[in-house]
Structure formats: C-alpha cells, structure tokens
C-alpha cells in the first residue's frame, strides 16, 4: 500500500531527485558539533510558538477593555488554557535565549565568514524580529508591567532624531499608549511579524542548505592539510535523529517549566496609576535598559537617551555587517572580531545580571 502510494508520487514528482540534497548533506563531526543543534532548537521553539499562538488566538480578544479579561479567561476557564499560555510565554523566552546562544556560537566558531555572510545577515535580522515578537507580544495581556514597558520602549523609539517621533506615533497608533496601541501590536504580532519572519526563515534555511555546515577555521586548516583526518556524519538520518532527540529534550524542559512555573498574568493596566516600584523590562532587553539607566541625562550637549539610542543603533548596524570585516582565510581571522565577540557576550551577560540585581 505504502509502496504503491510512493510509486504514484515518484512517477509524477521524481522523489529521489527531490530528496537527493537531503541524502547528500553531511555535517562535520568534531568535539564542537553540539553547537550545530542550537539553530534547530530555535526553529523547533518557533514552531511551538506558531502552534500555541494559533491556539491562543481562538480565545484572545484584542482591545483595552477585553484583552486582560480574555487572557484571564484562557488561564482560568478554558481547559488547559493556563498550560497553552504558559508554554507560549516560556517558549518565547527560551527561543530568544537559544537564538542568542546560536548567534554567539556562530560567532565563536567563525561560521559567519565567507561564503556565509548572508546567512549571518538573515540570522541577525531574524534575531531583531524575534525581539520584536517579544516586545509586541508582551503588551497583549494588557497588564501594568506591559503597559509601562511599552510606554518606555516606544518612547525610546521617539528619541531617534528626525524619524523618531513619527515612528513612535506609528507604533502607538497615536500620541499615547492606549487601546489603539494594543490593536496595532496585536496586528504586528500575529500578522506582520510572522509573515516577514517566515520569509526570512526560508531564506536563512535555504542558505544553510545551499552552503552546508561551516567547519571551524582551525579544523578546516587541519582537514585541508590532511584530508584523511576529516570526520563527517550524514545529515539524514544520523544528524536529524540527534537533532530530534534535542527537540524532545527541549520539549521536556519547556513542558516542565510551563507546568511548574506557570506564567503570571499580573494586574490589569490602568493608564492613571503610577508606575510600580521595581519595574523592569523582559530580561532580553535588560542590558539595553541598564545601559540607558547609567547614561547621565546630558552628555556634553546631547540628551543621554538620544546618545544611547544612536549608539545602540550603530552597534546593531555594525553587528549586522560583521562578516564583511572578516578575512576569508582561516589563518588570517581578525583578532578584533573575536575580542569584540567576547566583549559583547560579557557586556550583555554582565549588564543583564546587573540590571536584574540593581534596585
């Protein structure tokens, strides 16, 4: 029966030819091979986000008067609603974490260098998008923390010279954070961002497929000098089965976190209460938050905020274009890029911890 179905498709589509790339794909095998799993785990968590997001859409109602109540309804009345929402929140956070880890592993293994510049660029853009998902999704339950986080976040956008103010009004759907902002963020979160992310993800995966897996420079030199030392495994089924195992572990961790530490809902947002003490953004924005907090209100004649925003913008741009500064010769890797990567990781981690502990 199965053979007959297979033959029917094979006659029309030439399945062997279609799956040839999958059969020929190999993955370099060395002691750092584990890092190759991170991208796949991020992809897996993204799929979880899409699935649980669709489930949440069945009950969620955008709008300042209804949003909080509808999430409350999902969490208290809908069977397993608390679990679905908790998984969505936890998976979002884990996905951002694995995306960051994936990025730093690519950086340290020098996988971004020629010919993989565009893979890096599409990856960094995806990371920005993922943070956009986090920022827009955070507001949707319409609680106090999210309300002020959005107020501050969009106000920071407003600090950008010239284009800032119109951008802020575009994001907020008006001068202030109101129900109009919620409606917009909902649209961004469930339609605009998923559309762009899906396209970029396809580009990213096609590039990975087309260019194959990168080999760390030191090994590349060794393997080129002595081809008999080269070790690889087949992508299908060897690597894929290992990846599936990693996904299963990720699912286990996710399920446990979501069940044992269900995500809080907080208090319904009220534009006419003071910002509560100890207010902080989500952890993945903390390093930027803490930096802005440390910049004095005036540096020379420039507003501290404006300076911070411009600095982060420039760093982001440099980050995006990093591969174009790198040499393509494994023996001529730029030391400053490695130095910068170590510094960036230390800065992001250090500032996040500082932000977490600071009052």
């Amino acid at each position, binding site marked *: 029966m199965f053979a007959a179905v297979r033959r029917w498709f094979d006659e029309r589509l030439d399945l062997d030819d279609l799956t040839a790339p999958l059969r020929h794909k190999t993955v370099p095998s060395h002691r750092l091979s584990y890092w190759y799993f991170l991208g796949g785990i991020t992809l897996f968590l993204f799929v979880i986000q899409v699935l649980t997001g669709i489930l949440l859409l069945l009950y969620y109602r955008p709008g300042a008067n209804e949003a909080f109540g509808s999430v409350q309804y999902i969490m208290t009345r809908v069977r397993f609603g608390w679990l679905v929402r908790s998984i969505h929140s936890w998976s979002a956070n884990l996905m951002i974490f694995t995306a960051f880890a994936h990025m730093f592993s690519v950086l340290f293994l020098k996988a971004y260098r020629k010919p993989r510049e565009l893979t890096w660029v599409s990856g960094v853009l995806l990371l920005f998008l993922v943070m956009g998902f986090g920022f827009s999704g955070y507001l949707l339950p319409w609680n106090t923390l999210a309300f002020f986080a959005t*107020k501050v976040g969009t*106000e920071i956008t407003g600090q950008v010279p010239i284009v800032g103010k119109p951008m802020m009004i575009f994001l907020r759907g008006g001068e202030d954070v*109101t129900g*109009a902002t919620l409606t917009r963020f909902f649209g961004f979160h469930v339609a605009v961002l998923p559309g762009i992310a899906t396209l970029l993800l396809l580009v990213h995966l096609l590039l990975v497929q087309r260019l194959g897996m990168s080999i760390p420079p030191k090994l590349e030199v060794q393997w080129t000098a002595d081809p008999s030392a080269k070790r690889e495994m087949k992508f299908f089924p060897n690597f894929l089965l290992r990846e599936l195992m990693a996904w299963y572990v990720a699912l286990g961790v996710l399920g446990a976190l979501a069940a044992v530490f269900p995500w809080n809902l907080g208090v319904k947002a009220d534009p006419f209460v*003071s*910002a*509560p003490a100890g*207010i902080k953004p989500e952890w993945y924005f903390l390093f930027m938050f803490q930096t802005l907090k440390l910049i004095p*209100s005036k540096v020379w004649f420039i507003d501290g905020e404006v300076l911070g925003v411009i600095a982060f913008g420039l760093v982001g741009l440099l980050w995006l274009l990093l591969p174009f500064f790198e040499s393509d010769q494994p023996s001529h890797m730029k030391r400053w890029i490695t130095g910068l990567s170590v510094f960036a990781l230390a800065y992001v981690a250090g500032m996040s911890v500082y932000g977490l502990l600071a009052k």
Partner: protein
Amino acid sequence: MSTDQLSQPEPTRRRMVGIFLGGGLLASFASFIYPVLRYLVPPAVVDLGGDEVVAAKLTELKPNSAKIFRFGSHPGLLIMESNGTYRALSATCTHLGCTVQYRTDLREVWCACHNGIYDLNGRNLSGPPPRPLDVFDVHVRGDEIVVSRKREA
C-alpha cells in the same frame, strides 16, 4: 528600408514608449502606496480635557500624601504637603513617559522606571529626567480642589 532597420526601430521612439510605460506604472504604484501610507498614520486625537479639572475632594487627601488624577488624557499628580499646601504636577516623567509617584518617605516625586527624582516644584533633581515636570495651578473652590493649566503670562 533594410531588414536591419525593421528589426531595430528608432531608439528615441522606443525610449519614449519606455518612459511613458515606466512612468505610468510608477504613477499607478504611487497611487496605491500613498493611501496606504496615509492609512498607517493614526488620525490626531483632539484632547477634550480642557484647561481645568476637579482633581479631588477637599477631604480626600491627608497631609504628606498624593493621588493621581486625570487631566484630559494624561495623568496628573496632586500632592498635599505636610503643612497642608496643595501642589499639582504633570505625572508624566519627562524622561521616557512613565507615570511618577509621590514618595512620602523622601517627600519628593519619584519615577520607578529609571529612578528619576523631582522636587515638589517639579524640578528634576537626579536620575535621567532631562526636564522639569509641568506645574499646574491649584485652587480650592468650595469642597473641590481644582487644577488648571498655568496661564501664559
């Protein structure tokens, strides 16, 4: 006329046709995109708050306490000092727009988002705020505390 000339019409005529076609296409795209761009910008909201609002009843606040009141679509902060004088300030932090609060322990105005501190005249004392808070006039009318925008002198 040779066959060569037939297969290659005058370049100027071809270019003109190209310009008209391309220009027409661009113009039609512009006519699609313009309404979309305008649609993205939210219509301006008229603030119907007026210049004056009843912020509280006379009996509502105790000395050394404060409350948030609505001034149009924005929050305001009404403070009763220990000596009984009222002060009204804009409650929107000049830093990144969080809503500030009165700290009874410090007797100052504090923004929880980034640790900005203002004095009771709205002056930014420390932390990131770049400008002072707007100060409103406070009057007592009957048993109501009325807050109004400062008249431009």
